């Protein structure tokens, strides 16, 4: 192998009889380098985008949600919540009550999903409340913490936190926090009173009448996810229970876990701990389509950019084919003193691989350097268009390995024909016409 490498390396460095072969060789190296660098940069950007989206998404949502299979709500949830907080890898848990509502202000209205929460707990499993950019989520906190409209009992720790089952907080106008797009849809601003209408109405002598509640809009959040910003609204758990006529009932317990990627597994443990009739869904299951789309985008990007490497490989094929034509006499001479067909084949295989290795190494260095620079000197983006104000770069070593393997593999394929034709040279024939 040393002999073949010795010849191949010298052929690569030597001045060409046909200058065009040298030019094509240089173009091949540049082409491979450009393809590899483009792949590394594109993968770093798609990884960065994915990571950013994942971080924001996971900030907004819980890692695992526990619900009743029959969707009949979780009663006597306090001991269950305390029990499930002890499950290994669970770092936080919070109760919640979901319900579909119509939120309106004057003539304008929009559909929404109310989540009744205990703010102190909710903040441990999701950060939508920390993303309030107008007003404040503090108004959702129980009594004496700035809340304008709620008075909560204060007897005992747990009671103070969750409220006693039979306690009826005295409400005037309960506070509500809604998403930015929903606020725009109904034309509401902080301080406005909005009407929240629940389809789960009350039976009156006049028939089923929808239940409604006037709420004070105390905060508007912006998560960057249309799904949340256009429909989510937060109320205190007690207020939501009253609105939905569900005394001391929750529909979900949300969890944060210490290892994102084991959310499915930890979810199954939580399910077992909760007992029969419960099911969990993880963030991966809830957002499977989104991440599948991101993965697909990454694969398509990879394939499209890998075409650059294919074009470069085509250059390698042309350069090597021309070199074999140029070197036919030398090949015959090598064979005349005993160089085997396999050795000749390997000389040109190695030459193609040398071009590819040099191009790939240059491309890796260039790609990672530019990715690092892109991450270091942030490239600004229009946040209103991309929902992120800079281009995120997240280069990964594993991507470099895959790109290098693909680049070398494609180049190796390109060397097969010319190296094969070099091995077929018949020395007597080749030198007869010299």
């Amino acid at each position, binding site marked *: 192998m*040393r*002999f073949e490498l*010795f010849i191949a390396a*010298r*052929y690569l*460095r*030597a001045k060409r009889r046909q200058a065009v072969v040298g030019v094509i060789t240089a173009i091949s190296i540049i082409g491979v380098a450009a393809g590899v660098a483009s792949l590394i940069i594109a993968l770093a950007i798609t990884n960065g985008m994915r990571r950013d989206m994942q971080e924001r998404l996971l900030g907004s949502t819980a890692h695992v949600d526990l619900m009743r299979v029959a969707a009949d709500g979780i009663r006597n949830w306090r001991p269950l919540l305390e029990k499930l907080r002890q499950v290994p890898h669970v770092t936080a848990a919070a109760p919640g009550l979901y319900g579909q509502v119509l939120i309106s202000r004057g003539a304008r209205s929009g559909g929404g999903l109310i989540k009744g929460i205990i703010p102190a707990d909710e903040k441990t499993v999701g950060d939508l409340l920390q993303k309030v950019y107008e007003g404040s989520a503090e108004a959702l906190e129980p009594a004496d913490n700035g809340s304008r409209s709620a008075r909560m009992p204060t007897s005992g720790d747990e009671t103070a936190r969750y409220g006693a089952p039979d306690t009826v907080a005295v409400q005037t106008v309960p506070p509500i926090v809604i998403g930015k797009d929903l606020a725009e849809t109904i034309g509401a601003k902080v301080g406005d009173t909005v009407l929240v209408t629940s389809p789960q109405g009350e039976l009156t002598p006049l028939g089923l009448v929808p239940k409604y509640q006037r709420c004070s809009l105390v905060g508007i959040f912006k998560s960057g996810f249309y799904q949340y910003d256009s429909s989510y609204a937060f109320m205190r758990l007690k207020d939501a229970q009253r609105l939905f006529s569900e005394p001391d009932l929750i529909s979900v317990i949300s969890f944060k876990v210490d290892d994102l990627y084991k959310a499915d597994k930890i979810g199954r443990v939580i399910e077992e701990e909760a007992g029969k009739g419960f099911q969990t869904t993880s963030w991966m299951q809830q957002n499977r389509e989104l991440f599948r789309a991101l993965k697909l985008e990454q694969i398509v990007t990879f394939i499209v950019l890998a075409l650059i490497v294919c074009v470069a490989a085509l250059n390698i094929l042309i350069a090597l084919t021309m070199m074999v034509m140029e070197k036919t*006499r*030398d090949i015959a*001479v*090598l*064979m*005349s*003193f*005993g*160089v*085997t*067909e*396999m*050795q000749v084949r390997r000389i040109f295989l190695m030459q193609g691989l040398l071009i590819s290795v040099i191009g790939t190494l240059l491309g890796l260095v260039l790609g990672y350097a530019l990715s690092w620079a892109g991450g270091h000197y942030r490239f600004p983006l229009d946040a209103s268009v991309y929902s992120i104000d800079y281009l995120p770069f997240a280069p990964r070593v594993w991507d470099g390995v895959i790109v290098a393997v693909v680049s070398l593999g494609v180049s190796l394929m390109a060397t097969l024909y010319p190296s094969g034709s070099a091995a077929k040279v*018949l*020395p*007597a024939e080749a*030198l*007869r016409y*010299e």
Partner: protein
Amino acid sequence: MTDSGRMQPFPKPQKPQAVLRAEGLTKVYAEVSEGAGGLELFRGLDLAVHAGEMVAIVGESGAGKSTLLHLLAALDKPTAGEVYCGEAQLSKFTAREASEFRNRDVGYVWQFHYLLPEFTALENVAMPLLARGMGRTAALERGAYWLGEVGLGTRGHHRSGELSGGEQQRVSLARALVTEPKLLLADEPTGDLDTRTGEAVFELIQGLHQAHGLTSVLVTHNLDFAGRCTRMLRLKGGRLEEVTRS
């Protein structure tokens, strides 16, 4: 003389074993161009070269001298017949065995030097040894010795383009002999050189042949050189004839 007083015939000198033999060698090229038919160079050709001989083959251009040399070096295959080197039957060789035969048993010198221009004279000489897997240092040492043998001990670091025609052919000769082969086959080694340089190269070949106990076959157009060989054979009409010297 025996006891009976009868004269016994003088014992016939034992002919040494032929190192290289060709038996019934035929070479026909398939139709070279449309309608031209096949080209028969020779048919049923026999040749025996004995150890230590320096055989010259002469003949007109196109007679098939170079082709015969290619067949003897396993660079080409005959249409019929067989070439033997010692006990080895060349037509039975696989491609790999043929390569090994050319690397170990044959030193080949072409009319043109055919040095690899990307490499120095020393690297060119060491190339057959490197090809067989010998270490670089050992191969270059042997190469340097053979460059010295052809009188170019100080020119090892020069590339072929920096050498004269005669020097290039000497390097080519050193490359052919670096593996210390049984056979030296030279195809018009002086054909591309001027008279004086050609003479010097021929004398070098002759000197090395004697000094290293080689068995050599030379194809040449130069009857003077051919006359100075052990035997001269003429390839004519597809047959080899022994040329007797006056």
